[in-house]
């Protein structure tokens, strides 16, 4: 593979990383800590929303983020023909 293709592959990878990490930051530090007092005024069932993000929601989203990353990267590897046979 040419180094130009490599650079393109890497750029796409970085773009995925930045978007996924933005979500990672938002659900934990954002919803779970910084905006928690505001979110706590909203209730879902018995859960104040900020509290739910801090003790439940952020963890579920972390798991989803990794599986989404795996899906995106496997697709990208195929597209650039750098997957492992």
């Amino acid at each position: 593979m040419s180094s130009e293709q490599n650079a393109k592959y890497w750029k796409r990878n970085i773009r995925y990383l930045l978007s996924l990490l933005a979500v990672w930051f938002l659900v934990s530090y954002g919803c779970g800590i910084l905006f928690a007092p505001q979110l706590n005024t909203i209730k879902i069932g018995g859960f104040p929303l900020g509290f739910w993000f801090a003790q439940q929601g952020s963890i579920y989203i972390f798991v989803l983020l990794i599986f989404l990353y795996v899906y995106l990267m496997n697709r990208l590897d195929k597209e650039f023909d750098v997957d492992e046979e």
Partner: protein
Amino acid sequence: MGVQTWTFIIVGFTFILYIGVAIWARAGSTKEFYVAGGGVSPLANGMATAADWMSAASYLSMAGLISFMGYAGSQYLMGWTGGYVLLALLLAPYLRKFGKFTVPDFIGERYYSRQARLVALICAIFVSFTYVVGQMKGVGVAFARFLEVPFSLGILIGIGIVFFYAVLGGMKGITYTQVAQYCVLIFAFTVPAIFISLQMVGNPIPQIGMGGTMADGTYLLDKLNALSTDLGFGAYTEMGMDNRVNVFFITAALMFGTAGLPHVIVRFFTVPKVKDARISAGYALFFIAILYTTAPAVASFARTNLIETVSEKPYNEMPEWFSKWESAELIKFEDKNNDGRIQYVADKDRNELSIDRDIMVLANPEIANLPAWVIALVIAGGLAAALSTAAGLLLVIATSISHDLLKNYLKPDISEKGELIAARIAIAVAVICAGLAGLNPPGFVAQVVALAFGLAASSFFPAIILGIFDKRMNKEGAISGMIVGILFTTAYIIYFKPQLGGPGTPEGYWFGISPEGIGTLGMFINLIVSLVVSRMTPAPPQEVQNLVEDIRIPRGSKAASSAH
């Protein structure tokens, strides 16, 4: 049958299981010993990683901590899970493609420097050793309390078991025993949680039950808030505004620390492909999340149960478990106003009850009147958690000595067979040292764990990230960054930890950041120093730049090997 008989049966059965697995999966080569032959399936690796990661502290202490801290306890939940996102996205696939055995291997080669390798080596040993001593202590406590053997004998039994399967099986034996240990510990943690959730809110899923309604129609969390504020504690679901910055920094230090811990990183060397390294981080977090989302539910159930059972109730009507933990001196009652009732309130002068928060998970099944076998199961789970983590850590220490120090530093011409013998001797010595240190732990072991996370966050994490994502990063930058990061973090922690002899007081904290959270700042300092220094010194040699190009592309990965 009583709790003790059940404990003997269940703990005995699990130990036979671990030993059987270890004999079946013993290691025959250094590659099997260090990275389990590089052929572990991602699913098995995910389970083993989860067992390796969840220590006696996660299993026994975390739910108790949250139950007493309320909202602020979330820092442990997010901190000890969010790091896996960083691992999966920023570290695991690239380190797997790099294809060597250890973290010092990576640091040493990427920064083409023996000094860098040595700094990494010392950090890896220090971080792992402080951790493992705590685990050994956990094993001793669990045995001592439940089999009613002396604490020292408890530790000796623990040493014996770990010795057997770690020395014999290396990473391969440890990995497959950890799979078994994961199953035991997760079963043992969720079963009582399901029972209690059914009892309190009539919902078999604790994660949902936590937001459910109790028999009287009020939401459990509302009830808990009302109970807490009535007694003068803060509302359970509200975060104190004054410690928001600190919670932020502690969460971050735990996340970046997790992603920099050598015993976690090394797990991703054991799978066959880059693709497998990515997905096995996902499986690992999934398996960890089962416990980490159950724990906060257990915490809120236990807290509600506890307050309802003891508050304003006559002392002589307390159930059996109360006096049992009282005799173990983990619950203390002092009738200050002589009314014969228990006043459990936030006000220190009027409060009559002190509870060791570590007992919450263990006492919870008894508080909820669950059958004896469930209580025995919880004990077996606690032992599985402590043993699996101890074994993983001991392997890192042994590998650091036989591979990084002996093979790559002192005696490069050592044969494969010689290295394997050295690795077995190193792990044997490490088990015994850790056991002895656990027998007679310096009072500050618990305090030093903060240091372990802080050091991992402020040394390894930036050095590895920059090594992958910044091609221009050179040895001058990385080494000065690591050294400044470590020195800053260590100095701050020692200065502000009275248990370590520091003179600092909480009033002096920078921006209100406690020592547990300072690793985050140390990490940023490391990043800045590395970047500035590297831009003022020569670029790394071409072959290192080619190496960086190579680890970014998945194709062409080979199983981990020691060839240089």
